[in-house]
């Protein structure tokens, strides 16, 4: 039975990291959008950013798992503020330096966000889903702010406001760490499947989802308002995925969201409302893959989170090199990949789809 104190702690940690994740994405996408305004950087900057902000999260996560006293999130916020200030003042040599520092800061806050929300969740998915959803709102806010006359140093100061939130979240993490293994209630994987296969399959699903995220047909997206609506829907979908998984089980939520997303996404190429329903269903799978990997790496939630972000990079990387020219080919690939993902999820999740009640 969960006590009132643990419910307050868990929800508190989730919403604190919702804000920290929001602030992180605001400064990152503000800087990235300003940087890509320079034509030389149009293609290279997003690729470098994706690689250095997504892939090292496993290593930093492992360090955070082993040395919990290091205030990883606070270090990350300071690094991002320094990078943002450098974009404004140009103190460090070249723009690559500031970009790399920005990426490292991004890595630190993301990893700690996952660590804290997973440890403070009593095996539920909604808390990490709330944390993850904050990013979508931050991405669109950062992009919109970059098109204004707002100076970069103002955004640097804004990201520093996340430090008190990060310190409070650390307090919650210490409270959760009083248990020997705070993530032991994550038990969503099929116990008959070897742990390595679960990680590999879940990562492949993330890769496919990452690719699909860029391939979704959205011809209707023409105005700023419509773009904002798309990102808000993504954020709400990610959060709802965690809530639904807690209410109805991981397996049912994964199958329901994947099967329902396809017709809405294909039929909604030119119809915004239909497309947004599809995007919401599609975003629901986000926290499920994370929960599956954590289920086999219970003592290393930071390392587990790193696999999902590496998968996201590997899924988005082909977009920089190849693109399907016809809508039919794009839809066919998305449909085939969805069926493969569905099969993968059915194999690696527990049949009841719920956590082990004995724990």
């Amino acid at each position: 039975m969960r006590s009132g104190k643990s419910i307050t702690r868990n929800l508190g940690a989730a919403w604190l990291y919702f804000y920290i994740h929001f602030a992180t994405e605001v400064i990152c996408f503000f800087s990235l959008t300003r940087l890509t305004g320079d034509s030389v950087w149009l293609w290279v900057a997003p690729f470098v950013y994706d690689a250095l902000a997504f892939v090292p999260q496993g290593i930093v996560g492992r360090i955070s798992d082993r040395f919990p006293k290091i205030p990883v999130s606070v270090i990350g916020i300071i690094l991002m503020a320094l990078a943002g200030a450098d974009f404004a003042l140009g103190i460090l040599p070249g723009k690559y330096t500031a970009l790399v520092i920005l990426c490292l800061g991004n890595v630190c806050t993301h990893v700690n966000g996952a660590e804290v929300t997973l440890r403070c969740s009593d095996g539920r998915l909604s808390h990490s889903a709330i944390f993850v959803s904050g990013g979508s709102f931050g991405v669109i806010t950062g992009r919109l702010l970059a098109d204004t006359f707002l100076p970069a140093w103002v955004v640097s100061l804004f990201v520093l406001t996340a430090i008190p939130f990060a310190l409070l979240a650390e307090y919650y993490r210490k409270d959760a760490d009083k248990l020997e293994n705070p993530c032991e209630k994550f038990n969503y994987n099929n116990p008959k499947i070897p742990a390595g296969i679960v990680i590999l399959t879940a990562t492949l699903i993330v890769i496919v989802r990452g690719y699909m995220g860029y391939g979704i047909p959205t011809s209707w997206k023409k105005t700023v308002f419509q773009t904002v609506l798309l990102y808000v829907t993504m954020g709400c979908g990610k959060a709802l995925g965690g809530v639904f998984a807690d209410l109805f089980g991981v397996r049912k939520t994964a199958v329901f969201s994947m099967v329902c997303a396809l017709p809405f996404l294909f039929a909604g190429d030119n119809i915004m409302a239909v497309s947004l329903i599809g995007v919401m269903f599609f975003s629901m799978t986000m926290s499920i893959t994370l929960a599956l990997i954590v289920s086999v790496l219970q003592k290393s939630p930071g390392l587990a989170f790193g696999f999902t972000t590496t998968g996201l990079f590997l899924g988005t990387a082909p977009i920089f090199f190849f693109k399907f020219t016809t809508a039919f080919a794009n839809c066919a690939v998305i449909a085939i990949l969805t069926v493969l993902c569905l099969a993968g999820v059915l194999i690696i999740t527990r049949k009841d789809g719920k956590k082990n009640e004995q724990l």
Partner: protein
Amino acid sequence: MNSFEFIIDSFFLRHISAPIAVISAIVVLIIIITSVAAAKEIKKNKTEKDGGARDV
């Protein structure tokens, strides 16, 4: 142009530049390190579980 030539042309000739090659090498290295860390963790968990079973 057949598909093979297209891949060679679009991927290797147009896009592989020095920063991309460096980043790709870093990515591969990090993925290997992360995978090894995960493999060690899984092995450790398995050993702990087996040990626990023998104790029972």
